[in-house]
């Protein structure tokens, strides 16, 4: 097996490579070209899982597992979490704003890729030792032996790095309150002073067909009032503009109700 691995692999692995490799590439492309961040994240997760399989196939059992647990499990979930925070439904426009950026990017990518592949092709990588010997005592044990001897210093450093990163993330996202919080009374006074909307904000979905948070309530004249939607959604531009639809829905509802009433009436009448 070891000898064999020196220049080729089993047919099974080849089959697996071609199938999963294609999936990985497709996943990667989808990551790049999907409009919604959440789709991108899911595609990326797919690619990562494929890669985990490849790790396993390459004898890196520990990494394969870690890839799934840490990457796909933790990091990608973190991504998804942030995506949710930022707005899951917001779709990016893929229209380019910087002049020439896309073409330059594609050109560079193409050139880079070709050069990279040419470089690999150029390199004399005929030797293929295989990991049989290295993994003889088990992959994890082998890694551990290396990590805690040869790479112990780097390992310690990564530990420090992780802690620092954790602290950093906390510092970055944590907002220190610099002034005393305003009391209810002060807020009320401020509202009076500014002459703005004095009563409490209306609840969303008032007079609407449903009371979803992202749907503006309707004023008595039938127009939507943005005030009814929470500020975060407003800022994100995620207000679902329902006034027209709601009205038509309302009309349809009335129509239906009338129809039924008529039917009932006629029914009654026919009866």
């Amino acid at each position: 097996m070891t000898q064999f691995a020196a220049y080729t692999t089993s047919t099974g692995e080849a089959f697996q490579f071609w199938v999963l490799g294609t999936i990985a590439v497709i996943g990667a492309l989808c990551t790049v070209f999907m409009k919604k961040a959440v789709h991108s994240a899911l595609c990326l997760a797919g690619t990562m899982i494929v890669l985990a399989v490849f790790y396993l196939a390459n004898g890196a059992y520990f990494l394969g597992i870690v890839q799934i647990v840490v990457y796909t499990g933790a990091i990608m979930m973190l991504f998804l979490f942030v995506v949710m925070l930022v707005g899951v439904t917001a779709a990016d426009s893929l229209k380019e704003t910087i002049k020439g950026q896309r073409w330059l990017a594609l050109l560079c990518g193409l050139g880079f890729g070709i050069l990279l592949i040419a470089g690999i092709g150029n390199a004399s990588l005929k030797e293929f030792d295989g990991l049989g010997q290295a993994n003889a005592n088990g992959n994890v044990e082998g890694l551990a032996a290396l990590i805690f001897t040869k790479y112990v210093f780097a390992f310690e450093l990564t530990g420090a790095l992780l802690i620092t990163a954790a602290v950093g993330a906390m510092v970055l996202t944590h907002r220190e309150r610099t002034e005393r919080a305003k009391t209810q009374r002060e807020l009320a006074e401020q509202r009076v002073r500014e002459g703005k909307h004095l009563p409490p904000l209306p609840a969303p979905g008032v007079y609407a067909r449903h009371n979803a948070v992202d749907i503006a309530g309707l004023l008595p004249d039938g127009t939507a009032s943005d005030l009814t939607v929470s500020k975060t959604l407003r800022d994100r531009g995620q207000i679902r503009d329902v006034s027209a639809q709601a009205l038509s829905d309302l009309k349809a509802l009335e129509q239906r109700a009338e129809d039924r009433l008529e039917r009932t009436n006629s029914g009654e009448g026919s009866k």
Partner: protein
Amino acid sequence: MENLIALLVAAPLLGAAVLLCGGRRLDAVGHWIGTVLAALSFVFGAVLFADMLGKDPEHREMSQHLFSWIPVEGFQADVAFQLDQLSMTFVLLISGVGSLIHVYSIGYMEHDERRRRFFGYLNLFLAAMLLLVLADNYLLLYVGWEGVGLASYLLIGFWQHKPSAATAAKKAFLVNRVGDVGLSIAIMLMFTTFGTFAFGPVLASAGDSGEGTLTAIGLMLLLAACGKSAQVPLQSWLGDAMEGPTPVSALIHAATMVTAGVYLIVRSAAIFNGAPDAQLVTTVVGAVTLLFGAIVGCAKDDIKKALAGSTMSQIGYMVLAAGLGPIGYVFAIMHLVTHGFFKAGLFLGAGSVMHGMNDEVDMRKYGGLRKYMPVTFVTFGLGYLAIIGFPGLSGFFSKDMIIEAAFAKGGTEGWILGGVALLGAAITAFYMTRVMLMTFFGEERWKSRPTASPEEPSAEPAAEHHGAHAEPHPHESPKVMTIPMIVLAVGSVFGGAFFSIGDRFVHWLEPVTGHTHGHPPVSALTVTVATVTVMVLGVGLAYLQYGRRPVPVVAPRGSLLTRAARRDLLQDDFNHVVLVRGGEHLTRSLVYVDHTLVDGVVNGTAASMGGLSGRLRRLQNGFARSYAVSMFGGAAVLIAATLLMRAV
């Protein structure tokens, strides 16, 4: 006794320093301080002269070493004086005539509020001029040389508020500077040739050097002499220099400073003796100037400018004589001395006339003044007779000797030079008679002057005191002015005879300059007769033109030559067109070049860098993605480079 030499220079220098730094509180006595110190210098000179006469003629040279001036490796310049017979002659002439003119100026400048300063400048001039003739090396001579130039500049431009005076002063200095360049190059040549520029060693070893070097030095010295002595082609400043007060014209631009060129040539006799080509050029310059000055003198109506032309012409004689070599040196100096007497006298006389005539300088507005100014008339007349070479008077002896020596040069040159000198004598007689007749004889044209007298641009400022518009009342000048004139007249009458009888002057100077007796192709008597004949011819011609006929108040148009001569034979026009205009264009275009080209290259570089970075700045659009593209592209290029390196 040697220690007195420095005092010769020191006395007037002290006067200059005291008068110029002393300020207003010396105004009342300034002129006396100046005069006394000038006279003191003359007294020192006289004492030294008496001492010198008492010595053996071969050992009369005295020297005084003051201090080492510029000691640099291989280059020693000392402040040291040398007083020999040649210097002595000059010392007496300068301090003597200088003192007389100081006295005269007391009267002449009486009404000028800046009289103290005037005397300070005069003293400065005396100091510089004495330094010039007493220096024992060329570099110190150069100091005196430029010093007199400065004094001349200050005095010509004394009435600075007149733009014409300021311009004339500047012109004089500049033209002199051109000559000075010649002197400095000559000194440099001496330094590289002989390793020194002290008179003694240079002149003693002049013979050891090649003729080419000597010719070069000689020509450069001649250039210097041309500048200082107003010889063609650097003569243009002298006429304008008449803007200065008349005593200045008498002292500096007639008697002393302008003859410094002759001194230089005679002093450098050893060099010229070894350079026949330079001598030839010198004689040609002298001859040309002689005629040039004479012709200009005939056409000028301004009495001072006419006399200036005459000065130029007479110095031409001297330069001609100096160029003749050992046969002429002594006569050059002799004519220089006699010329110093009679020309100074003539100028002082002219000043006296102007003093009595509300500073009018146009001879056409004079006439018949002999009745009003008898003393001036007589002294001026004696000077006149001396300059035209009336037999027995000083000019007769000295000029005759020069003409003789010119003939004695031999060959065709001798004939040409002698002929030119003779012709010059005739013209001299003509223009001087013209001056004489127009000024002192004939009808009194100043009376017929229209009341609204044209304000001459060159009218001297003392006119303000007299009232320029009033009809002049000619009157004799005060004693303080006439006495110097009388003294000078005596000198111009008897000087020549005193020097010539028994060849006194020749014997006096011979140890310094050397002397060879020339043998003219015709007898000396023939030359003398010829000289007197042409003189009489000139006088007669002038009498016919100006004595017999009334002189028009407004100058007639005149012939082409007259008109050209009025404009200094168009030399100024040439200068103006070629040098002044050309220079203006050159400097203006250079200013443009400096601004646009030299500066432009730099500014252009800066601007293109600015433009380039302005364009590059657009790459810095602030979009991280753009930067990322360039990073990525850079990475691609790096890979490409690595691959290429591997491939190669």
